[in-house]
C-alpha cells in the first residue's frame, strides 16, 4: 500500500474558534491506482491534499506513505519525503519563469544531489516522456498553457516519485489542452505511476479509475469510474 490514512482530523484555529476541516478521514491507495478526490470548494480537499503531500500535518490520526510514518518525521525528513516520494502538479503550473524548461525540470534533481551531467540527461528524458523533447530550452513564457503543465508534470516525475499528486491540473487550461493532459495522466498510469488527483470537475474526475468524494471534511462515498459515470 502506498498511501494509508487512518482517522485523520484537521482543525484550524480561527481567532478563538476551532474550525474542523477534516473529520475522521480514512483513505488507502494501492500502488498503480489512479484516484480522483472530488469535492466542491470548501470541502477540505485541498487540506487533504496538503496532508497527503506532506506539506501539512493533521491534528490527529495516522498517515503512512510507502510504509513510512509521516507524522513522526521531522521537518527535514518531510522535505526529503516530498523530494523523493511525491511529485506535485499544481493548477497554476508553478514554473520558474526565468529558467528554461530543462532547468525547471532539473530543479528537484539538484535538491536530490544529482550531478549536473546526469541532471541534464534525466531532465531531457523526463521532458521527452511528456512529449516536449523539442522544447527543452524554451522558457515558460514561450510555452502554451498545456505545454507548461507538461513541463510541470515532467518536473514532478523526474525523481521517480511514489505518487503523482495533482491539484486541479486542468483548472487553468482550455478544454482541449486539458484533455491532452488527462491523456498524459492516463498514459503515465498505464506505465505504472500511482496518481492522486484533486478536482471539483466531475468530467475530469471521471477519467480516474477510482473516485473519492469529499464533502464538508468527510469522505462520503467511494466509487469506481462506472459509478461516477452514472
Amino acid at each position: 500500500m502506498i498511501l494509508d490514512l487512518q482517522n485523520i482530523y484537521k482543525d484550524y484555529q480561527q481567532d478563538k474558534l476551532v474550525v474542523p476541516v477534516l473529520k475522521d478521514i480514512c483513505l488507502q491507495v494501492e500502488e498503480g491506482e489512479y484516484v480522483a478526490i472530488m469535492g466542491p470548494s470548501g470541502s477540505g480537499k485541498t487540506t487533504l491534499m496538503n496532508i497527503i503531500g506532506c506539506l501539512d500535518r493533521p491534528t490527529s490520526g495516522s498517515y503512512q506513505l510507502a510504509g513510512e510514518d509521516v507524522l513522526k518525521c521531522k521537518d527535514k525528513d518531510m522535505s526529503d519525503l516530498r523530494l523523493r516520494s511525491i511529485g506535485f502538479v499544481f493548477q497554476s503550473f508553478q514554473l520558474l519563469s526565468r529558467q528554461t524548461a530543462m532547468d525547471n525540470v532539473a530543479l528537484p534533481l539538484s535538491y536530490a544531489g544529482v550531478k549536473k551531467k546526469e541532471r541534464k540527461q534525466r531532465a531531457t528524458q523526463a521532458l521527452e516522456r511528456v512529449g516536449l523533447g523539442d522544447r527543452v530550452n524554451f522558457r515558460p513564457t514561450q510555452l502554451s498553457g498545456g505545454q507548461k503543465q507538461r513541463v510541470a508534470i515532467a518536473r514532478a516525475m523526474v525523481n521517480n516519485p511514489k505518487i503523482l499528486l495533482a491539484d486541479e491540473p486542468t483548472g487553468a487550461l482550455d478544454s482541449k489542452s486539458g484533455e491532452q493532459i488527462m491523456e498524459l495522466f492516463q498514459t503515465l498510469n498505464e506505465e505504472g505511476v500511482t496518481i492522486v488527483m484533486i478536482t471539483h470537475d466531475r468530467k475530469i474526475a471521471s477519467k480516474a479509475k477510482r473516485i473519492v468524494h469529499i464533502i464538508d471534511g468527510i469522505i462520503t462515498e467511494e466509487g469506481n469510474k462506472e459509478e461516477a459515470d452514472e
Partner: protein
Amino acid sequence: MLENIRLSFQGLWSHKMRSFLTMLGIIIGIAAIIAIVSTIKGTNEQIKENLIGSGDNTVNVQLYQGDSSYGMDYMGVPDGVPVISEETRKQMLDIVHVEGASLYTSREVYNVIYYQNVGLSGGKIYGIDMNYLNTCNYIIKKGRGFCDSDYKKFRKVALLDENSTEMLFQGEDPIGKTIEIQQEPYVVVGVITKSAKFEPVINNMEEYYTYYAEASNGAVYVPDTTWPLLYGYDEPQSLVLRLDSVDNMTVAGREASNLLNVGLSVTDDTIKYKADDLLKQAEDIQKLSQSTNTMLIWIAGISLLVGGIGVMNIMLVSVTERTQEIGLKKAIGARKGKILGQFLTEAAVLTSLGGLIGVIVGIALAEIISKVTGTLVSISVPAAILAVVFSMIIGIIFGLLPSYKAANLNPIDALRHE
C-alpha cells in the same frame, strides 16, 4: 554552491537598476575606505622615504650618552670604549639582513676646513674605512676614491661631497687642489655623491630643518688612518650598516649595538652604542597621521552599515516578491538550508559585487586625489581583498534575516500567495 552563485547573478541581472542602487551604499562605503587607506599608505610611505631616504638602506650605530650622541668635541674619549676590531666588524656581517658594515669616525666642524680664504662654516668631517663608500652607496662623481696605499701610506687625501665642493670651490675644479683641515694640508682626490638621490618633499618649516640642515652642510671624508693626525688617537668609532631593506633597520641596528655594547666597560652606564632608528621615528609620525584618518574610516564604516541595511531591505522585498517561488521549491523538496543558502548567497554576491566595484571606484578616487593634491597614494592589495571579503560578510549578516524569513515560509501559504 556554484549553481547558487550563477543563479544569484542571473537574479541580480534581471533587476539591474535595483541591484545597482542596492549596491550603491556598499560601493560608496568601500570606495571611501579604499581611497582613505590608499592615501594613508601613500603618506606613510612618503614619510618613511623622507626620513630615511629612498633606496638608502643604511643605519648608523653611534656612541650615545643618554638620549643624545656622545659629544666628542667637548668631553674627549671616555674610558672603557675599545677600538672596534676588524673581527667585530666582520661579526656585523653575520647579522641577518646586513649586507655591508663599515667603521667611521666623525665630528661636526666649524671653521676648520679652508680652501685658500674660503672656509666651510658648518659641516662634518668623516674618517672612513676602505669599505665605507661602498657600504653607504656613494658613487664617485669626479676624480677617484681612496685606494689601498692611501690608507697604508697615511696619505693626506680627501673626498668632498657636492655641498662642500660647491661651498669651498664655487665652480672651480677641486681635483688636485689642496685644502686645509685642522691646519693640515689635504689634497682633494675626488667628489662623491649618493647613488640614490635623496629628495624629500617638504611640507613645513620643521621638516625643512630636519631634511636640509644637514644636507645643506658640506661633508669632507679622509682615510681613517689619517684621522689621528687631525684629532689624536682613541677616537670612539661609529658603525654604519647597509641592509637589504629599510624595514629591517630597527632589528639589525639593535642587534649591532648590542654586539658593540658587550665590549664596553664604562663607569657611566648611560654611555652606550645606539642605532639611529629612523624607521621608528617614521612610524611615530605615521601614527599621528593615522589617528586622524581612522576617524574617516569610521565615517566610511557608517556608510557601509547604511548600505547593509539597504541590502537587508531589498532582500526582504525580494523574499516577498518570490514567495511563490520559495513555496514551490519547498514543496518539491528543498530543505530549509537550501533556501537559506540560496538567499544568503544572493545577498553575499550582491554585496561582494558592490565591494568589488567599490574597490575599483576607490582606486580611481585615490588616483584622482593624488593628481589633485599631489600627495602620494599607494594601493594596498590586502586592504582591497579585505574590503571585498568584508562586503561579503556584510551581505551575509544583513541577508540573514531575510533568508531566515524565506527559509521558514510555510509552503502552503507561499504557494497560494499572489
